[in-house]
């Protein structure tokens, strides 16, 4: 397929969509499917058919619309009227009242002028919930694969790397390494074969940002990876996606087939000299495989055990070859950066943390779901404006970011800007984007114990500080939770935290003490209160 044919196909699809009198966008991704989304979709299909509206109304299976706690969600166009908690009975009412009659079913309409929607800036999720997640034409109509066409049509690989560098984009997996720099290293490392790997092993509990992208807009990730392949000189890409995401895997596989059929992946992409294949590798439930060197071993069919760095994967990665490995959200930012320029992207967020970040906002909060906000937004805005605060009768206690590698941020730091450096300064990390709100009913010692149990179970066992240290730390925390610990145990806990942090081989062990250290820092009184009464223990 040529670039002209691609544009024609996009125009055809836009005309096809415009010909419908109304469009019913129905979220069929995991969040809504969990609360009956598929039945809702079927109810719409049946009712549109029954009322003779199927020819003039398009029913579109989409990805995530964000407000996952109020699903199933449905949007009716034109007008983008958003409905919440749409069960089959409500679906019938919407068809009769809104689709046929033109009057929205007022009681189920979500006010989209509230801060939950108005405070968001959508780049990564610009198409989520708005395009057909199962057809490539939907992505094309929204301008998809134009960045790839632009790159192949007249940018040197070095220019592409430069554009990404200029955007200031940093790795969205959590560590925040500059993406452009990573690409530049792989680009200049000479090798007969190079690889592009997408880390879709979203393992942090409470994190589902990447699943949202993969289920809602899978082609965006493929396009970002192909651009990376062109920039660094790779012909083969792999997506390593966790087995716990069957729908994401299905949509990704479908997307790869569609892109191959149109000549957007495979040999001679868009009839250029550039060839790029993408294969999907399904993980098998090991948290440590989110660590890049462990992930690469897993793609090679081995146990997912980390290796010391350097050498970094950018120089010696998959099968020992130079490998660009980025997170789903990082790749999802590439096409907009190419289309609109690195300078545009760098203008969003803060000078050192550019662009937006997607968060999975969950826990003791009114508005659960996926949100995308500009970097540097105060935590308070996320929790209280977008999230609507904690449920009635409880008060905010802490925001947990970064999962088992992160920390708990207390109320006194609510005005903190959310960027890589600020979060680190208070002992947490940006992480991949899980943001779990804890209210006054949560015990911080118990939360610390919970995360340590997680790390203990998930330690791969290769290095001793992590393998043995997490067990000892968990033992001490459990002792505290049973109110049997002494002041000496508490001192040992702190000492051991520092030891595990400083001597573990990979990120899993190095970050495992973070939840303990951050709760000790801000909620020491809870630890002291948990000590055994004097004379006991």
């Amino acid at each position: 397929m040529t670039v002209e044919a691609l544009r024609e196909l996009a125009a055809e699809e836009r005309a096809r969509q415009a010909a419908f009198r109304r469009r019913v966008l129905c979220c069929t991704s995991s969040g809504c499917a969990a609360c009956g989304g598929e039945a809702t979709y079927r109810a719409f299909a049946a009712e549109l058919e029954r009322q003779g509206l199927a020819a003039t109304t398009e029913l579109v299976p989409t990805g995530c619309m964000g407000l996952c706690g109020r699903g199933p969600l449905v949007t009716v166009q034109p007008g983008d009227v958003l409905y919440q908690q749409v069960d089959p009975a409500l679906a019938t009412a919407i068809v009769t009242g809104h689709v046929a009659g033109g009057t929205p079913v007022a009681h189920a309409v979500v006010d989209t002028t509230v801060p939950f929607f108005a405070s968001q800036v959508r780049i990564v999720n610009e198409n989520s919930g708005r395009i057909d997640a199962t057809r490539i034409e939907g992505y094309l109509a929204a301008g998809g694969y134009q960045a790839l066409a632009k790159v192949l049509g007249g940018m040197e690989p070095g220019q592409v790397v430069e554009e990404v560098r200029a955007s200031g984009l940093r790795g969205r997996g959590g560590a925040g390494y500059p993406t452009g720099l990573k690409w530049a290293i792989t680009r200049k490392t000479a090798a007969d074969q190079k690889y592009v790997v997408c880390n879709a092993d979203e393992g942090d509990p409470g994190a589902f940002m990447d699943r949202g992208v993969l289920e809602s807009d899978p082609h965006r990730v493929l396009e970002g990876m192909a651009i990376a392949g062109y920039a660094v000189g790779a012909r083969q890409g792999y997506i390593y996606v966790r087995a716990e995401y069957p729908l994401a895997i299905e949509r990704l596989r479908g997307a790869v087939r569609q892109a191959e059929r149109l000549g957007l992946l495979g040999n001679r992409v868009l009839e250029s000299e550039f060839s790029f294949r993408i294969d999907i590798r399904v993980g098998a439930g090991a948290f440590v495989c989110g660590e890049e060197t462990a992930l690469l071993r897993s793609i090679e069919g081995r146990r997912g055990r980390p290796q010391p760095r350097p050498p970094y994967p950018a120089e010696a990665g998959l099968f020992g070859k130079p490998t660009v490995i980025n997170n789903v959200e990082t790749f999802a930012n590439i096409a907009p950066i190419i289309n609109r320029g690195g300078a545009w992207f760098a203008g969003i967020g803060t000078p050192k943390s550019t662009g937006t970040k997607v968060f999975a906002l969950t826990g003791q909060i009114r508005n659960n779901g996926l949100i995308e906000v500009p970097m540097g937004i105060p935590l308070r805005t996320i929790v209280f404006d977008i999230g609507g605060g904690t449920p009635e009768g409880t008060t905010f206690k802490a925001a947990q970011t970064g999962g088992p590698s992160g920390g708990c941020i207390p109320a006194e730091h609510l005005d903190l800007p959310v960027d890589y450096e600020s979060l680190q300064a208070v002992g947490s990390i940006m992480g991949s984007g899980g943001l779990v709100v804890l209210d006054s009913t949560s015990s911080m010692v118990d939360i610390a114990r919970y995360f340590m149990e997680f790390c203990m179970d998930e330690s791969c066992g290769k290095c001793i500080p992590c393998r043995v240290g997490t067990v000892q730390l968990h033992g001490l925390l459990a002792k505290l939770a049973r109110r049997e610990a002494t002041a000496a145990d508490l001192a040992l806990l702190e000492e051991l935290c520092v030891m595990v942090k400083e001597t573990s081989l990979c990120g899993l062990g190095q970050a495992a003490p973070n939840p303990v250290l951050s709760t000790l820092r801000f909620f020491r009184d809870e630890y002291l209160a948990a000590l055994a009464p004097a004379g006991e223990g």
Partner: protein
Amino acid sequence: MTAPRTAPSPAPPIRDPRYEQLDRTISLHQRDGHALIEVLHTAQRLFGYLPPEVLRHVAHALKRPLSQVYGVASFYHFFRLQPPGEHTFVLCLGTACYAKGAPRLQRAVERRCGAPFGQTTADGKVTLLTARCVGSCGVAPLALVDDTVACWLTEGRAGALLDGWLGTEVAP
């Protein structure tokens, strides 16, 4: 299961059609040892778990030492080395579920089934497993009930569901 210690032996004459399907996947990957995890995924889908004879078959077909195949199969949580029960109940213990009462559910389910998570009930009816996070935190707490998500789960609903599987007789 203990680690099988015998060296890979030539595959026995097998008429089980599941082996034919497994061999098709192996051929698709050109018997490449790098595809081991993909092949184990297929095997588990076909057999429900990974019994020793299947691991031996895979090791032989991919020309990998059995120790390595067993090492990979036992490393990853997703692979089961024991046959599952008739039904599976996977309780999510992600942070959001945990903060919203999953530990209480966990205790209630264990009491009802008379078996701890990680095991199958004595009558072989229900396998209890935990998940680290299925990523549907908006509807926490939740469980995967025979692969279907049961959202906003309560002790009462979990109990009713298990009653249906186990019969109404209360476990000892």
